């Protein structure tokens, strides 16, 4: 059975989305995207410099990658909307990760302003992915407003602390009927795998790949662990028990008698 994530008519097989900030160079960023066979990459519009023919970040995103512009730097809904519109005008497409941050210390998103931006941008036919603090009610509102997926954070951006918000994310996965993409805070491939095992539709990773000693290898490691986690999820993960459960039960013969 073919397994893919379908968003706005696009079929995505690789469920590892990669953020393009923080890399030591654009060529290394490109190699990492290629090594992971990434199909979706986020790019901050603030970094896009169309004037520079040799150093425009967009030229280093493989053609096979869907670009998702993020609104990094926006402090309220209005600024996020303006950045999204500028992205569209600049020809960067209409996939938008809405990032509204009013706290520069922890870089935690403002869910309310994010929701307002979702409402505006959906009406303008953007494909909208809100980055948010995990919250069931807000997630539902984002979905009702027309977000194609929601992106709750695992822990603060760049913290490499893993899925500290696991309980809340699990609830969102169980209750919200659009894809849940865990974004931010994943520090190691096993944590990305954990998100996939829980049933996340995808994960988005940047820092852990970009600042590792070998970003190209690390991108592959994340890609493979995301794949493993997804396979495990699809296979049905057995419930963990506190006691042993024998592979060949002693009372198995009773079944034969029945």
């Amino acid at each position, binding site marked *: 059975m073919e397994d893919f994530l379908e968003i706005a008519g696009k079929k995505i097989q690789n469920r590892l989305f990669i953020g393009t*900030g*923080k*890399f*030591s*160079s*654009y060529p290394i960023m490109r190699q990492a995207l290629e090594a992971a066979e990434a199909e979706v990459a986020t790019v901050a*519009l*603030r*970094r*896009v*410099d169309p004037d*520079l023919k040799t*150093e425009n970040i967009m030229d280093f995103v493989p053609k096979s990658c869907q670009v998702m512009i993020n609104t990094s*730097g926006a*402090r309220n809904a209005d*600024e996020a909307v*303006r*950045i999204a519109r*500028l992205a569209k005008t600049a020809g960067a497409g209409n996939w938008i990760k809405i990032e509204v*941050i*009013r*706290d*520069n*210390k922890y*870089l935690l998103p403002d869910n309310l302003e994010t929701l307002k931006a979702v409402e505006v941008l959906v009406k303008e036919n953007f494909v909208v992915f809100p980055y948010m603090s995990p919250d069931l009610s807000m997630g539902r509102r984002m979905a009702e407003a027309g977000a194609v997926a929601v992106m709750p954070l695992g822990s603060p951006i*760049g*913290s*490499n602390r893993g899925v500290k918000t696991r309980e809340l994310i699990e609830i969102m996965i169980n209750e919200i009927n659009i894809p849940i993409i865990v974004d931010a805070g994943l520090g190691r491939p096993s944590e990305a795998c954990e998100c996939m095992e829980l049933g996340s539709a995808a994960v988005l990773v940047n*820092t852990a790949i*970009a*600042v590792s000693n070998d970003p190209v290898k690390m991108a592959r490691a994340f890609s493979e662990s995301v794949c493993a986690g997804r396979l495990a999820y699809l296979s049905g993960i057995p419930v963990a028990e506190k006691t042993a459960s024998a592979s060949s039960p002693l009372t198995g013969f009773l079944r034969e008698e029945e």
Partner: protein
Amino acid sequence: MSFYDIYKKYKNFDLEKRFRVCTFFSIQSALENARLDINQFICLLSPPAENLLESMAQKAHALTKNNFGNTIALYTPMYLSNYCDNSCIYCGFNSENDIERRKLSIEEVDKEAQYIRSLGLKHILILTGESRVESPVSYIKDCIQILKKYFSSISIEIYPLTEEEYTELVNQGVDGLTIYQEVYDEKIYSKMHIYGPKRDYKFRLDAPERGAKSGMRNISIGTLFGLGEWRKEVFFLGLHAKYLQDKFPDLEIGISIPRIQPQVGGFKPISMVNNRNIVQVILALRLFLPRLGISLSTRENPEFREGLIPLGVTKISAASTTAVGGHTLAHLGQKSSQFDIQDRRNVDEIKLMLEKKGYQPVLKDWLQI
């Protein structure tokens, strides 16, 4: 509430006494904490912490990488005018100094901007001396109108303004404010600033806060090394940055720690700060405030700058000149400059150096929205 209240609270604080109780173990324990309190910040600034610089550096480096990635932002200063009504004894623009005074015409601003932009730079810091007659807010607004055509981010380093004036400049397209207190110690401040509007310590101290209220996105503060005792100055600088971060969480707060360099007036630093001290300052500030922007100017020489970069620096200047029109009006040269620069490398050389060190030079990190 203003930062002045915090300054007053700690003005007579016995930092030396606190330093005496800092031990290897208290410093080590500060290094193990994710969030440092003021006492732990003091520990990292203490003389005994000099023996733990390498451990501090390792942690500061990792913290900076996670927060800012393998990237360093580039910018360059552009001096618009050197007319000044102040007499600050350490500054080349001191109105007593016999230097060639001038300000750029709008055409010259355009020319400088075109040139700087041709180097690939997109972030500009504009500077003036303090003269409300020669470089009034209206003149600065006219310059910004031109600069907007060329740059993605415009910051100002000019005399302190009122909140209304800052708002006017924000509406015109300015997104960043740099204003150094120069020296937090109020008594020394009074001795350094002989006459002129800059004598008003408190109006300057509150300027970052007025800027923050006006809608600026970045606020950068600093203390000029060579005036007050450096440990005490950095203590106040750290408190000031923290105060601004706490009060304005949506702003990017940055610092700079310029060291006095030779200038026309021939002022000699009254308090010495060596390279080892500068390293300790950067490390202590980075560990105390992990999200703090740290900017490094060309006042430091190339080798030292390169050594400092991995310790927590997020932003450096390139192709700097401190003379009015210094980018394109070569004939003016040093005669009108504010101070000597030590790192004269051009943008390509700085970019190459960063790439060699494993950093991506970021020329554009904002956009006019």
